[in-house]
């Protein structure tokens, strides 16, 4: 991912991937977690990112039947997703160190 794309889109995607890296997480919980850190961003933005990650093979979903209410979709990171996350984090570090080198902290 180029540095420019990294800045514009990659940060939120990186964070979403990070939240599902260890265990299967219900989509709504991912959205709630992300919202805690980015309160000005709609929850639906994170839902859209989750769907994209699923579409491009970075995340798998499993459905659990709820006794009352619609089934819940749990997201889990894939090998490809882990590789993407790793790349995103490296890109983010480059951006961060460049910004800090300028004197912005």
């Amino acid at each position, binding site marked *: 991912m180029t540095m420019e794309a990294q800045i514009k889109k990659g940060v939120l995607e990186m964070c979403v991937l990070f939240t599902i890296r260890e265990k299967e997480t*219900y989509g*709504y919980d991912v959205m709630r977690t992300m919202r805690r850190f980015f309160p000005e961003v709609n929850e639906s*933005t994170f839902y*859209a*990112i989750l*769907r994209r990650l699923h579409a491009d093979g970075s995340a798998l979903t499993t459905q659990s039947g709820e006794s009352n*209410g*619609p089934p819940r979709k749990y997201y889990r990171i894939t090998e490809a997703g882990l590789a993407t996350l790793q790349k995103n984090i490296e890109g983010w570090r480059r951006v961060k160190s460049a910004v800090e080198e300028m004197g912005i902290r």
Partner: protein
Amino acid sequence: MEKQKFLGELRKELRWTFAKEETEDILRDYEGFFAAGASEGKTDAEICADLGSPPGVALSLAETLGKKRPFSRKAAIRAGAAALLLIPNLLYFLLGNGNPAVTCAALLVETAALWSVLGFFPPVARRRTGAGRWPVLCGHLLLGGLTTAAAAWFWSRSEVLALGNGGASVDTAGILFAASAAAIAVFGIVWFYKRSAQAFTLTVHALGAVGYVSAAGAVFSRLSDPDAFNAGMREALWIYLFALLLTAFVAALIRDLGKRVK
């Protein structure tokens, strides 16, 4: 907003972009979010506020998933029908007719048909971009009024095609022309930086408004004289076609720029 209303609106929005199965899948997920939110003790209104507006949700999904807003089958049929409607109208304009009322009706049909073909008919544009009802409507009316004056001014001064005199006085119309050009430019630039998809549509609206209203100038300046009236209508058609070409060009340019920025 209540859950059912939210889901109903979301379904309408998603239909424009996603296949049926995908739409249903997304809606099931959102039903789940409402259930999960309710189990945390949140009200429907709070859940809706956190999720965002249905048009915004649909737009966000479309952009994130890299979906263009395609012509659905329904839109394609509508476009075809509209294109057929255009033929008699065009003939009518080109051949001329002595009855102002008939010409007026024809121009209205023409306008609706052309905008349907392009998919920029106001309700459709609103649904696709998620822009609010009032911004779209006000943009239409405001810029429409200004561009009418501009069109009238332009044609009143033009001797190239020798199409007669427009009704607006040159001084007033000249000022309005400058103001409308500035308004269009500001609109386009501001919205371009805010959100390219909306910039695209709003600029299209602003420029396309020439089409809606160029007729109005001609109508008001020539109501008393049927012959002059029809000459004015023909002018309006030329202005309209010119505006459409310009619109298509600018729209393509903005969309292209928007892609590059992303």
